[in-house]
């Protein structure tokens, strides 16, 4: 049984930008791609810059992969998998995300 928690309303997200949510004591970067059906959630902590900033990064695509580029040193992270595209050894924690009745909800990735 998943445990979904509402963090904000869809209207709080703008296309192609991110926000940071406090979710069970963790900083989660939440992004909207081109539309509200296109949401992503990964850890907000940038393991390269060692600061909680990823929600403030630019969203881009390479081929089909949608990624966020860190605002500090521009490393790119696949928003679906959390995998860093510039360093195979590094990846971000990801979270499940959905829209329910205009509420944006997060849930821990089931193991």
């Amino acid at each position, binding site marked *: 049984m998943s445990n979904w928690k509402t*963090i*904000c309303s869809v209207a*709080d997200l*703008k*296309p*192609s*930008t991110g*926000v*940071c*949510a*406090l979710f069970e004591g963790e*900083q989660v970067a*939440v992004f909207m*791609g*081109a539309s509200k059906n296109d949401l992503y959630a990964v850890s907000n*902590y940038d393991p390269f*810059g*060692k*600061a*909680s*900033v990823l929600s*403030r*990064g*630019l*969203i*881009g*695509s*390479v*081929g089909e992969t*949608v990624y966020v*580029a860190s*605002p*500090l040193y*521009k490393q*790119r992270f696949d928003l679906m998998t959390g995998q860093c595209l510039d360093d195979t050894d590094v990846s971000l924690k990801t979270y499940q995300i959905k829209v329910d009745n205009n509420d944006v909800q997060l849930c821990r990735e089931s193991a």
Partner: protein
Amino acid sequence: MSKQRIVVIGNGMVGHKFVDHMITTQNDGELEIIVCSEESRLAYDRVKLSSYFSGATAKDLALTSREYYHDNDIKFRLSDKVAEINTDEKYVITEAGHKETYDKLVMATGSYPFVPPIPGGDQEHCLTYRTIDDLGEIKSSAAISKVGVVVGGGLLGLEAANALKQAGLETHVVEFAPRLMAVQLDEGGGKLLRRKVEDLGVTIHTEKATSAIVKGEECRYRMNFADGSFLETDMILFSAGIRPQDELARKFNINIGERGGIEVDNFCRTSATDVYAIGECALWGGKIFGLVAPGYTMAKVAAQHILGRDKVKFLGADMSTKLKLLGVDVASIGDAHGQTPGAQSYVYNNDIEQVYKRLVVSEDGKKVLGAVLVGDVEAYGGLLQMMLNDMDLPKNPEALILPSSSGEPVGLGVDSLPDAAQICSCFDVTKGQIKEAVASGCTDMAGIKSTTEASTGCGGCAALTKQVLDAELANLGYEVKTDLCEHFAYSRVELADIIRVKKIRTFGDLLNSHGCGLGCEICKPAVGSILASFWNGYVLEDKHIGLQDTNDIFLGNMQKDGTYSVVPRVAGGEITPDKLIVLGEVAKEFGLYTKVTGGQRIDLFGAQLHELPTIWKKLIDVGFETGHAYGKSLRTVKSCVGSTWCRYGVKDSVGFAIDLEDRYKGLRAPHKIKFGVSGCTRECAEAQSKDIGVIATENGWNLYVCGNGGMRPRHGDLFATDLDDETLIKYVDRILMFYIRTADRLQRTSVWLENLEGGLDYLKEVVIDDKLSLAAELEADMATNIENYQCEWKTTISDPEKLKRFSHFINAPDQDSNLYYVAERGQKRPATEQERIELVELAD
């Protein structure tokens, strides 16, 4: 085996070239090199001496450094002339008494300026023009002089005249021959050069032989001429030719020519065993070569021979030259006077546009023998190559010097040149070497320059080098790819045109019509910047916000820990005490680390996202506005205090700086833009290191463009002189908008200008002469931008929707718990990783 000792006498351009060649080609440690020089500094660029008067320093002119010599184990003795050579026992003794034995001796003593034996010619303000020390004397003398005369209307004489003119003197040139540059130019060319130089305000006196220099009535001196006329002047520069510095050879029985010069053979060996001579002191085939390129070749030949390789020989050199004298383009190729028996000429003379060209061809009309070009030297590279490579002339040789109706340069295609063709004579770079460089991955001029050194000397071959580069890229099937990124198959310049012409207002529209995918961190900010340059909308509008890079998106400069710095605009660096107090109070209230910036503003560090709106509200309430320190946009207009307070100021630099900053504030561009305004030539605002530099003169403002500090410093180029406020602003409007239209992404103006085809001259044609009929459009674009200016922070704090984003969490009032600070020198700074660990432990 003991090391071979090589003593080099002289450290001019050629002497240094020899040393450098040894450093780069010898095997480690097989040689010991000792350099003796009478000058107080290591080698510098004598060709560019006159730039000393337009702001270059001794350091700018330096070709090497003490560190470089030390690092490569080159011993050197400066300010210590060699006084004695013993060719039997193989040693030299310096004036200071140091003895150096040698296995090989290289004389690179250069030349000295010829000073005609004129009674009174040895007075205090009668100087020569050859060394940096000479320049120092000229500068001091010029500072207490109003009128200056150069004796000698040759190449060096005109360079010297340029120096005097730049020093602000009424300048005259006195020449014995009936025309200027009599060696290189024919009558027609000399005549036009004279007219052009006179238009620039330099008075020319030809066919004048100075008989005596006596005390003057109006000025310090009077020069009496053999024809009974006279000229009054405060200082005199002798530049009547050079003589080989062969004194040592003469004294110690090394063979010299009848009219001077140390005789050398094809390996640059003198008559004494193991003694070589190179450069302007050497006489080969009865000739002295007074240009740097042949000197460099000699340096290479001697170095190779000493290393035991005798493949390369010095077999004379082509003395063709192309240069800019007092801003006038002049070139001379081969037999410029048509003295070869049977030589025939084509002449093109255009008094209106002030262009003169003469093409000298062989008796059978098939080969180029020489040429003279004044006012338009475009054909130089092609004609020179035709001559050097003995190529056949095309069917209608006159087309080579006639203006083309199609606008396409006529001449030879570079493809027809053999690989052995020398493209850059200063550094002896062949077409083959440029091709190799391209094959190894150099795809632009900057790469070619750093790999081959081509066109880094006099620059005369730049156009030709570029043609070879482009042709080679095409030959290799390089599609010269200028696509911005995978989302747009267009260059930044093309996208700028598309956006402007099709009036595209959003990234989404552009992506739909001309791109694919979502975009990326390359194309989004680039397009965001272009949209802002042309339409200047609010950058945080929903349709633009996703395009903004790290700093723009929160209108602050993100620091390493994710907090921001706050920089309000302080136009011209002028600030009232009241405003200064507010800055202090705000910094104190929010605990911000405070530092004065390089651009005369105050930077407040460590503001958290949620604090930004409150901080800005307080600042805006007392009249501050955003400083755009976060944008690729106009940053600051730095100024000195100027005539309102300074004893030396000639104009109100602060006032003008504020006007300029107010005009261009918020202007987004391919990269950041900095201005400087100085109130007098002392240049305390360092305007020449700015993208746009303005320096007050007695008659207005001098405008410098495309300077840069930072990573790759570059002095701005003098663009126009003595402008009034209005004209200056008009030019700056045009320059900046032209930059915005044509620069690459993240390209500063300095690199832009260096890559702009046609360079500074072309930019002047576009901006001053309106060659492209764009001026009105560029000004209108600027007007639109200015009209739509807004303080982005003011807009932001008055929009509650926008303010929602300015909190660390969308769903909680908490702050980022990852921030740790320690105190240092009375302020805070982010904790280092180690400190952070300790702080966390402490808290736990």
